[in-house]
């Protein structure tokens, strides 16, 4: 069974593996994936426990890396569709 993006995000933040470039690039290219990562931060923020705090922090770290790649996607799309 293919893992959903949410499952891959959960695996990455809960297993403590190094951030995967492929996942960073995928999230950076997808507004839905960016929203999903933020939503998971919000869910873990409501839950108690060290595991939830670690997951929150790792998602933040992932989004830091995503920010630097998403810049390129957004600047390119703004060039293709200039703001009115």
């Amino acid at each position, binding site marked *: *069974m293919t*893992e*959903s993006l*949410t*499952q*891959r995000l*959960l*695996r990455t933040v*809960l*297993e403590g593996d190094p951030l995967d*470039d*492929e996942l960073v*690039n995928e999230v950076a290219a997808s*507004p839905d994936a*960016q*929203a*999903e*990562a*933020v*939503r*998971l*931060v*919000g*869910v*873990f*923020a*409501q*839950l*108690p*426990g*060290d*595991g*939830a705090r*670690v*997951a*929150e922090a790792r998602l*933040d770290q992932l*989004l*830091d890396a*995503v*920010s*630097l790649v*998403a*810049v*390129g*996607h*957004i*600047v*390119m*799309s*703004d*060039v293709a569709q*200039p*703001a009115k």
Partner: protein
Amino acid sequence: MTDELRERFERLIPELERRAGELVLSMPEPRPHPSELVEATWRVVCSKRGTEAALRAVALRELECCTTNLALRRMFDAGDLEAAFARLVPHLRAWATNLSRGLSPPRPDPDDLVQDAFLKLRKSQMFVVADNPLGYAFRAVKNLVIDHARRKRPTVELADRHVGATELETSPERLDEMLTRAGLSAMEKCMLSRVVFDKLAVSAAQRECGGPPGAPYYVLEKILDRVAGSLGIDRSRK
């Protein structure tokens, strides 16, 4: 690997220089030579891992970013922070819109997030000297959205009163009640508690709590979806 990447990059140089030639026309004098922008693009591209497979797309994106960063640094040097912010607005608004869709309603207006980011950037001494002011500004917006996601801790309404996250932290019974309200079974409550309280591996938590074998992250995703639903943090439908 770098030699091979450079060879492939060199084959892209005519296309990149053509695009750089178009981009410099929108820059104030003195304009950089297109080749300077292409060389700056190479420095970024070769510093990034995982770019080999999509080199052309990455190089074109980084060329746009290098040009914008250079234009921003020129504006900083001229002391024209307002012009820099005006150039950043459409990019930051798009980024704030994407991220804020993951927040629970009522969501902050992306324009307000951008304005808040500018307030922070205005006070930052690092922003105006950063090599990558675009990336710095994107991180500022991301940090604001994460603050919203963390700050918005709605209390959980239980039978007798509202319970905040701090109390949940110290009261497994209250957590149990909250998870029951989310419709979780005993196995699902056990699994989530073992993961968030005890940092147990997801597959081990599933096994220990008597869950069916296999697909532990599928099970966890469904559990978190139900918790999110009970907290009003559903997936955005745009």
